[in-house]
């Protein structure tokens, strides 16, 4: 089966000789929920821009479901829907018109476009706003409108560039649900985000890009397995006046009912609990202190940065 997205030796140099992409290669399989992560200015948006032809590549190849973006321009574009980082619709038009027009640009007849516009506006909770000028929508509504617009031609590959930036938690969760649903229905999704828990929660595979290079391309699970240690926060029933000491487990007393414990990958949490129990300490609840993917992300980017400095 053809990959949903195949990027080979992709280079982009902007005016002023800034090299945004340095020969990256990447494959995303059909049906995947794929995260493209990286710090600001790493090259994520440039990559997405090239995929949807808003940015002209310097060299390299990009194909979408086997359609080369240079040779099969029209077919390749039929397969992609893109949700950009910034609002890029006519703020004076109504959401329903924005969607119907976008369908028209893909050659979809007006009656079918109107049906689909209603379907997606309803699914994204925007139907009651379908006939108001889009500039009156809230930030979250505008983001959902861009998702509806990207789906109007029912693409096989949906690319979202930070779709939940500035969106409140409740809305973010509902957008996650929606994205999971359309992914389950077969749409391949590529997501860039700064919320790493979003990537961890939604995506199966990940590529981390930094300074125009892919520094990691693997599954989220494999990536998380690279974690050597995790920091857990334990809520304790007893009131503690001093920090307990358990051999092999560095512990910090946060307050009289809370402990922080560092557990290495090779260590057992059962052993930790047994030792705490023996010391007369009962754990009421436990949680990760930091996002696991975030830890790894910083680690990888730091390593890449120090590598670049040493070069």
């Amino acid at each position: 089966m053809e990959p949903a997205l195949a990027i080979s030796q992709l280079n982009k140099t902007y005016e002023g000789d800034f090299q945004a992409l340095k020969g990256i290669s990447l494959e995303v399989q059909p049906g995947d929920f794929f995260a493209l992560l990286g710090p600001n200015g790493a090259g994520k948006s440039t990559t997405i821009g090239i995929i949807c032809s808003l940015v002209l590549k310097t060299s390299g190849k990009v194909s979408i479901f086997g359609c080369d973006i240079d040779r099969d321009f029209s077919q390749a574009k039929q397969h992609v829907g893109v949700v950009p980082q910034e609002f890029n619709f006519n703020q004076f038009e109504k959401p329903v018109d924005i969607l119907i027009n976008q369908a028209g640009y893909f050659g979809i007849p007006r009656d079918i476009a109107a049906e689909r516009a209603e379907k997606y506006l309803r699914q994204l909770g925007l139907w009651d706003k379908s006939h108001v000028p889009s500039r009156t929508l809230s930030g979250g509504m505008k983001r959902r409108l861009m998702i509806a617009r990207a789906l109007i031609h029912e693409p096989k590959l949906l690319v979202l560039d930070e779709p939940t930036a500035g969106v409140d938690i409740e809305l973010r969760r509902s957008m996650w649900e929606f994205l999971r649903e359309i992914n389950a229905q077969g749409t391949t999704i590529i997501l860039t985000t700064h919320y790493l828990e979003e990537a961890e929660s939604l995506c199966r595979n990940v590529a981390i890009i930094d300074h125009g290079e892919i520094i990691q391309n693997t599954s989220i699970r494999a990536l998380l397995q690279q974690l050597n240690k995790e920091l857990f926060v334990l809520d304790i029933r007893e009131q503690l006046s001093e920090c307990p000491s358990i051999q092999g487990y560095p512990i910090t007393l946060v307050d009289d009912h809370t402990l922080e414990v560092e557990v290495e990958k090779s260590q057992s949490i059962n052993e930790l609990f047994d030792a705490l129990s023996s010391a007369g300490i009962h754990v009421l609840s436990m949680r990760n202190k930091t996002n696991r993917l975030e830890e790894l992300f910083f680690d990888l980017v730091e390593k890449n940065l120090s590598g670049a400095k040493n070069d």
Partner: protein
Amino acid sequence: MTNCEKWIAFETIVRREIHRFLRIWPQTLLPPVITIVLYFVIFGTLIGSRIGEMSGLPYIQFVAPGLIMMSVITNSYSNVVSSFFGSKFQRNIEELLVSPTPNWIILLGFVVGGMCRGLGVGLVVTVLSLYFADFSIHSLPVTVGIVLMTSLMFSLAGLINAVFARNFDDISIIPTFVLTPLTYLGGVFYSIDLLGDFWSKVSMINPVLYMVNAFRYGIAGISDIPVYWAFGMVGMFSVVLFFVALNLLEKGSRLRS
């Protein structure tokens, strides 16, 4: 894209363009009509009645074709330049750029949208001019042909201006410093026979002169220049501008990074 899909894309762009200028009609349709009415009142009725005849016609009948043509030119141009630049400014041009719509369809869509406004305003001005001046059509094919080609040419020019424009000042430079002088010096208000030999020859490099005279020929049957020159000139300019505009879109100049 199949031909049917291309037609749908083209129709969508044209429909959106028409909807845009109708939605903001107090900005797009009303001002040119008021301006032209003022021209008719001042130059046609008040001053024109003292001027007498120009090229054998009462002055108001002489200026009426030029004023109609002036409204077609400025509205065709300004519709495309403001709509296309507005799309660039708000970045909603990206809706088209990410779609499979070929560049020549995008170009035609915007140009036909501009022509609809130019011809629409021209028609309203023509109807209004009948209140001030009494004229009939001398040659319908010449009248319709030249007005269509002129509208096409200035719509294309508007799109090129919009592609190059970086800010709102850039879209007013050409209309203010090029289009307005060319129109005023293009024989709208006078016959080039009034100019000396030198200035008469200089006027011949002004494309607006050809359009206005051809249109005046279509309506009143008089012209300072041969009509076929006008068609040749406007046709040649339109072809050149079409390929320049298409090339800019193909290269993604100032549209794609």
